[in-house]
């Protein structure tokens, strides 16, 4: 019960933060969606980092390390450290500049302008929302699972809670998390989201480190920190310390996954909140270090959980590993605080995603082709809120009927965004990109992603690779790779080939987007 109370207090605190941000709300759509471009380097660092660190990074990385061993850090942690900053530098900074110069709020506005095509917006909108829903499911599922595991046994004897181990059922926890995030997003807008992200990022980084040391002490059982760490690592089966469970070609293909950050619509919106281009410098430099601070303890906890002294039974569901470690090794108050830290990471991504789908709906669909006289600012904000509720409701229902591994669900969503990365890269750096090439690229991504997702049993086969078996080419053998490679290559080929065979953009448009 104490754990549950601590979690409830934390959630109320967040709602309070959103209400405080509402007092500074200027009443305009621009302030609601972009915080009036007022975010400085520190808030930008914390909000970008908090947004990219989701249930995937905490619950997913711990669970996957429990299954696959220490290689999970190299697989996505260090790769993200390099590639995310690369995306901030090569994509984020130029897009911020173009966004400020031409008044963009969403990615689709940029693509419509750059490609002189309205249709690209109508094509991209449902695809982006669909991929964001997949990403949202990671947070909704992860949050519910953690609360259920940690509160197990809180209500003994309540018959309808038997299936959830007499704790808070995951469907209820997921629902409450959605409502809390919706509340502070609705009241605080982008400013509230940036504040909540900064607060929550600090909370999960500090409590994450605390969790790590407490569990190390519980497994090690001595007073010496280094001895505890050594004991915890030495009880792990040797194969978990190596990368024998990860095929090398799959490790290589995972380098493409972090490119997805360049096409996340919620990250685009965060980029546009920056006060100046210089505000990007701090996030670019410190992002790899922050990822390291979060991922290293999570992966170590995951591999420790696979050892006999961890108290985690063999064959535990990977989504439940982190919650079980906290429940087994921390006291009730600390356990509650640590759970709040995990929820902080999850909610700091959900909020930005909620806000961005609302912004996309109003700016790219509702307001597109309308004059500003037809809808006032309040009506725009209200419409954004209704659409957010609809998307969150859909995500919530999908999370109930399509339970999947948090890690795999995240990977499929990232695969789609990575497939769209060549589009944004070409739009910024390739003058010859045409609307036909862009549309061809998006359709290539849609087709390859759908086929591969279907072939993987709708994400239920975590080891699905493409090609499905090695292909002998005349010069070499193509090994099975992560599906992201197939989607990415199809996208690049379609964009380049179709662009070269179609009419180039007008000189006026090129002059608007490229320096002479």
């Amino acid at each position, binding site marked *: 019960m104490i754990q549950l109370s601590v979690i409830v207090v934390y959630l109320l605190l967040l709602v309070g933060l959103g209400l405080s941000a509402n007092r500074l709300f200027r009443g305009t*759509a*621009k302030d609601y969606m972009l915080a009036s*471009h007022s975010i400085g380097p520190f808030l930008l660092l914390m909000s970008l980092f908090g947004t990219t660190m989701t249930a995937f990074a905490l619950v997913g990385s711990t669970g996957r390390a429990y299954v696959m061993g*220490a*290689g999970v*850090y*190299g697989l996505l*942690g*260090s*790769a993200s*450290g*390099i590639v995310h*900053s*690369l995306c901030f*530098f090569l994509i984020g*900074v*130029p897009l*911020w*500049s173009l966004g*400020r*110069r*031409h*008044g*963009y*709020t969403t990615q689709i*506005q940029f693509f*419509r302008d750059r490609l*002189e095509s*309205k249709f690209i917006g109508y094509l991209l909108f449902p695809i982006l929302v669909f991929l964001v829903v997949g990403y949202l499911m990671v947070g909704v599922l992860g949050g519910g699972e953690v609360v259920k595991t940690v509160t197990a046994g809180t209500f003994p004897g309540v018959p309808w809670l038997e299936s959830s181990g007499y704790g808070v059922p995951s469907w209820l926890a997921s629902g409450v998390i959605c409502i809390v995030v919706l509340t502070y997003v609705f009241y605080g807008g982008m400013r509230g989201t940036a504040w909540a992200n900064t607060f929550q990022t600090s909370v999960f980084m500090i409590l994450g480190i605390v969790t790590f040391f407490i569990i190390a002490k519980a497994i090690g059982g001595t007073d010496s920190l*280094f001895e505890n*760490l*050594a004991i915890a*690592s030495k009880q792990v089966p*040797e*194969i978990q*310390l*190596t*990368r*024998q469970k990860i095929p*090398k070609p799959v490790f290589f293909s995972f*380098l493409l996954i972090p490119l997805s950050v360049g096409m996340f619509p919620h990250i685009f919106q965060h980029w546009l909140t920056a006060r*100046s281009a*210089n505000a990007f*410098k701090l996030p*670019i*430099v*410190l*992002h*790899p*270090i922050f*990822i*390291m601070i979060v991922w*290293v303890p999570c*992966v*170590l906890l995951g*591999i420790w959980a696979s050892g006999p002294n961890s108290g985690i039974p063999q064959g535990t569901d990977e989504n439940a590993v982190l919650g079980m470690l906290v429940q087994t090794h921390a006291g009730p108050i600390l356990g509650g605080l640590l759970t709040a830290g995990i929820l902080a990471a999850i909610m700091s991504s959900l909020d930005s995603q909620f806000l961005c789908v609302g912004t996309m709906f109003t700016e790219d669909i509702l*307001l*597109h*082709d309308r004059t*500003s006289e037809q809808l006032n600012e309040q009506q725009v904000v209200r419409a954004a809120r209704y659409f957010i509720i609809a998307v969150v409701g859909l995500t919530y229902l999908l999370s109930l009927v399509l339970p999947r591994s948090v890690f795999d669900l995240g990977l499929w969503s990232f695969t789609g965004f990575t497939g769209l990365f060549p589009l944004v890269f070409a739009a910024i750096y390739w003058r010859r990109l045409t609307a036909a090439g862009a549309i061809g690229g998006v359709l290539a991504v849609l087709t390859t992603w759908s086929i591969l997702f279907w072939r993987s049993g709708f994400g239920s086969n975590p080891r699905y690779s493409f090609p499905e078996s090695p292909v002998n080419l005349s010069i070499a053998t193509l090994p099975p790779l992560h599906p992201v490679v197939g989607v990415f290559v199809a996208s690049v080929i379609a964009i380049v080939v179709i662009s070269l065979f179609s009419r180039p953009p007008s000189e006026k448009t090129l002059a608007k987007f490229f320096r002479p």
Partner: protein
Amino acid sequence: MASLARDDLRRKEKLASYSRQVLILWFFVLFVANLLYATDTASEASYWSSKNGFVKLRPLLALRPSLARQIVHTMKYAIWILVVLLLVFHQDYWQWNEATLDFGFLPRAMTYHVILSVAAAGVWLSATKYCWPKWLDEGAEHSTRENVRT
């Protein structure tokens, strides 16, 4: 006894070798810092203060401004080469089955990638210094358009 003395000698030689390497590296850092200092007269007073010892060395090491500018220009390429190297070194297949625990607790597969993360932060720090598009802030004035329609 003889083997102990041999070990001791080897340790001392190793230490001397490390010291030499550190000294050479320090001189290299001083040299590069002076070159950069010489190219950026605006930061003369603010950035490198004389207490760091750079100013005293400057007249001795500073090259012709054109050559120094060329070196800074080359730095841009060097940094992008470093980014590519980070991605290449990320694929550390040679230690795939390594189960060594560094510092007694950190699997080698993680230690290596932790170092890579720190190196990435260093490379990005250099990138923000030498490859930063300074014209961006000048070109991005507040737009009067609230929304964009095509």
